[in-house]
């Protein structure tokens, strides 16, 4: 077990709680907009940590870059998706909670 491998595993473990918080937010937060906040931000940091961690574990530059490519793809997908859902929701008259 190399030092880099241990750091990688630690990053993977550190990424998972962000998904748990994302789900918690999905269930607990009061309206569509705040749920979007919780999901978009949490899941992507979680995915980023897992990708980086697995990349370090693999010890290969190519695999790490490929994992980072998947991360960037998901970043684009969720940033655009969250924006699309939020803008359409407001345009269709979904009122934000507490306003």
């Amino acid at each position, binding site marked *: *077990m190399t030092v880099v*491998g241990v750091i990688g*595993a630690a990053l*993977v*473990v550190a*990424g*998972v709680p962000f*998904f*748990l918080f*994302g*789900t918690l937010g*999905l*269930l607990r937060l*009061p*309206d*569509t907009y705040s*749920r*979007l906040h919780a*999901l978009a931000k949490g*899941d*992507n940091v*979680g*995915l980023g940590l*897992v*990708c980086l961690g*697995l990349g370090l*574990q*693999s010890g290969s530059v190519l*695999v790490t870059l*490929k*994992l980072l*490519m*998947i991360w960037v*793809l*998901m970043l*684009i*997908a*969720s940033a*655009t*998706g969250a924006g*699309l*859902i939020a803008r*359409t*929701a407001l345009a*269709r*008259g*979904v*009122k934000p*909670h507490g306003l």
Partner: protein
Amino acid sequence: MNELFLILAVVLLLNTTVGLVRILSGPHPADRMLAAEMFSTSAVVIMLLLAFATDRPPLVDVALVFALLSALAVVTFVSRAWSALKPTTDTDDHDGGNR
């Protein structure tokens, strides 16, 4: 190390199961789509963890396809499915899954 990744994959799988509650309770179509988006992120992470835990690199490509599809899913939902539904009129978010 592989056992650790398998355990994390199971944790994330349970996490998505909990997220199903949001699909059942809605109340807006957007909320259900949000939960689906959370599933796609989790699917990517679970695939990546399984790829490394079971040492099957092709699963990384499966994760890549999931990442690409998640972008398409949101766009399709917003541009097609949501527009076909009736406009949202209620603003109260705590009425549970009555629709």
